[in-house]
């Protein structure tokens, strides 16, 4: 007989693991991935692969040679970071920029703080915002979707729907004049528009989100409060002046809102832990998104909004503790 093991209780463990959670997320990302391959063709596939592989490689190198700790690249989180990073860039982005972005995401956003679970900011968003500010030109030339193309260069580019509206309104045009210049809402909904790889198809993202909800990987609080507050906020503005402010539905299905609300804001590492905190977080993200979208210099505010709210998480966690058992005695 072998040696008896001594350990503290409990002696059993639920059939759940980080890896299961992470691969669950990856599975839920598949529909959006397929849509992106369909609309943006081979380019999308290559970018996604590059991002994932370079995230894995950088994580491996840093864990092995800098931190000199255990190598845990297959826990799935680096893969998610890679996929989401790829989802956040245009499909014709030069690959070396994707590699730089992955390096920043993993090296600066995650490993600097010790790896999985310790990073205060969402790594993929750190990478994305870094690229956005460093390479504004490349990061804002959006290829138009051409189903199943294998073309890698010289694709037709054009502004995103949000940028069209924002630019137009900035010049003083009316929303009603601008609307014909953007794709139909149904196209926007299924993802037939220019934009980042993964953000275009609201329907695929919602599908993935439902899957995660069912598997209890995420809870409803953040996506619903995020999307809801964007809807309400833009709705009010639209009601006030529909000629300057476009309708809320447009806001919901364009830009990275769905991607952000379902996948990036819900990253458990960088979001609050209690339901109340999550709601605050979601509403904060929503309001900041709209403020940046409508009043700021950037046409798209989701990444910044989530990153800014990430900074609030420790304070939110401190302020919204769960109501303790036996704290408020209401006996009856």
């Amino acid at each position, binding site marked *: 007989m072998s040696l008896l093991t001594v350990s503290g209780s409990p002696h059993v*463990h639920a059939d759940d693991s980080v890896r299961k959670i992470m691969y669950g997320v990856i599975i839920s990302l598949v529909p959006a991935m397929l849509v992106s391959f369909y609309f943006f063709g081979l380019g999308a596939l290559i970018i996604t692969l590059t991002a994932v592989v370079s995230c894995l490689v950088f994580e491996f190198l840093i864990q092995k040679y800098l931190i000199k700790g255990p190598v845990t690249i297959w826990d799935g989180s680096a893969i998610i970071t890679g996929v989401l990073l790829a989802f956040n860039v245009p499909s014709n982005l030069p690959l070396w920029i994707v590699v730089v972005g992955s390096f920043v995401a993993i090296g600066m956003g995650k490993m600097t703080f010790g790896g999985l679970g*310790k990073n205060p900011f969402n790594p993929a968003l750190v990478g994305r915002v870094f690229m956005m500010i460093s390479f504004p030109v490349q990061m804002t030339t959006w290829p138009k979707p051409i189903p199943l193309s294998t073309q890698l260069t010289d694709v037709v580019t054009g502004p995103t729907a949000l940028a069209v509206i924002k630019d137009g309104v900035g010049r003083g045009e009316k929303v009603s004049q601008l609307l014909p210049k953007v794709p139909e809402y149904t196209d926007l909904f299924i993802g037939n528009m220019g934009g980042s790889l993964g953000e275009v198809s609201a329907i695929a993202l919602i599908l993935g989100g439902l899957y995660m909800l069912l598997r209890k990987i995420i809870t409803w609080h953040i996506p619903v409060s995020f999307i809801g507050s964007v809807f309400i906020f833009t709705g009010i503005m639209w009601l006030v002046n529909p000629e300057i402010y476009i309708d809320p539905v447009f806001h919901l299905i364009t830009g990275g809102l769905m991607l952000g609300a379902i996948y990036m804001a819900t990253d458990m590492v960088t979001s609050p832990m209690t339901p109340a905190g999550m709601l605050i977080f979601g509403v904060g993200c929503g309001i900041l998104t709209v403020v940046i979208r409508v009043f700021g210099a950037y046409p798209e505010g989701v990444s910044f909004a989530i990153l800014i709210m990430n900074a609030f998480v420790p304070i939110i966690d401190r302020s919204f503790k769960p109501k303790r058992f036996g704290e408020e005695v209401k006996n009856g």
Partner: protein
Amino acid sequence: MKTFKTGGVHPPEKKFSENQPIEVLPLPETVSIPLSQHLGAPAVPVINKGDKVKTGQLIAKGESFISANIHSSVTGTVTKIDDVIDASGYRKKAVIIKVEEDQWDESIDTSDTLKKDCDLTSEDIVKKVNQMGIVGMGGAAFPSHVKLSVPKGKKAEYLLINGAECEPYLTSDHRLMLEKGEELMVGITIKMKALGVNKSVIGIEKNKPDAIEYLCELAKEYEGITVEPLKVKYPQGGEKQLIKALVNREVPSGKLPIEVGCIVHNVGTTFAVYEAVQKNKPLIERVVTVTGINIEKPSNLLARIGTPVSAIIEAAGGIPSNTGKVVSGGPMMGKALSNFEAPVTKGTSGILVFPKEASQRVTQLNCIRCAKCVNTCPMTLEPYLLALLSDKKRYEMCENNMIMDCIECGSCHYVCPSGRPLLDNIRVGKAKVGQVIRERK
């Protein structure tokens, strides 16, 4: 279906031995009866080396209020009173008796007949419980007479009987309810009298439908006793959770159940009280579940206190060859044994034998802040935070985050996908904070 509201888990039940009737375990060759089997001060031996003792004879006296008498569980010669190895490998004082025969003390009524009426006054009942060394058999082994003496200024309203047996694997309470139902009812009546309450609720989890049905039937004949089926959820058997589930009251942080007018007793304790009061029988034996995936014959054994664990496992078919871990108690709260010589004590509810592959913890990663532990904690604490704070020795922050409220149920560790040793950390923190609090006083 009633249950407590926040948190909780539902591990696979694996109650292999639930259909095994209670069997009497043959006497071992020697027993070693620890002098501290209960919460509170150790008992003081009243016999000497070489003395002959009878079954049921008092061998050590609990001298302070929170302490309990200890009786010999066998007949034989005291070979020594010395340190013996206990479950954790540390040495504790114990009385070691070489078993010779099984002659019971004359005062004990060894018959099987049900004795319903009890004409003792409530003080006498409590005294009897004290004399007979009854302690809580639900886990903490808290001296029962203390619980039955309601402090001045407090009033008990409910006597709650804990038949939840929410731990997986364990079935001793279940079998007891099925086989000693009538005695339980009498025991409850006696305790209601001692406490001066007229309401008693037996909480039983729904995965024991036969017990619920049987006790419901019996309860009809006893005034004030009701049976309440509960949803299957761990740690329903935790005192505070049970109170919340049965009467929807929350015991305030740091307070005792009596604060909300409740007293909780385990079914095993209740049976022991019946035997003590009606049959004059001290607490010298208890039902122990022996089970495990590879155990040949999972069973419920009536074992004498002091029987070595090895003897118990032997009775269930022996130790499987690939054993990696042996646990005394349930899989969630039990204690891993470092040897097989440790004796059964008043608080031992089960012996679990895990094969090697099931005895290792899952690989440990960083906390990913998934909040599963927060959502699972029945006391709505933040286990991840407490663990971190304790790890970084921020004990005052631990205290502010109510670490002392943790009931050590282990749900947090159970659900943590990263396999964090949350409860290990929290235990260290609790110990430190407890020390600080005691020094402050």
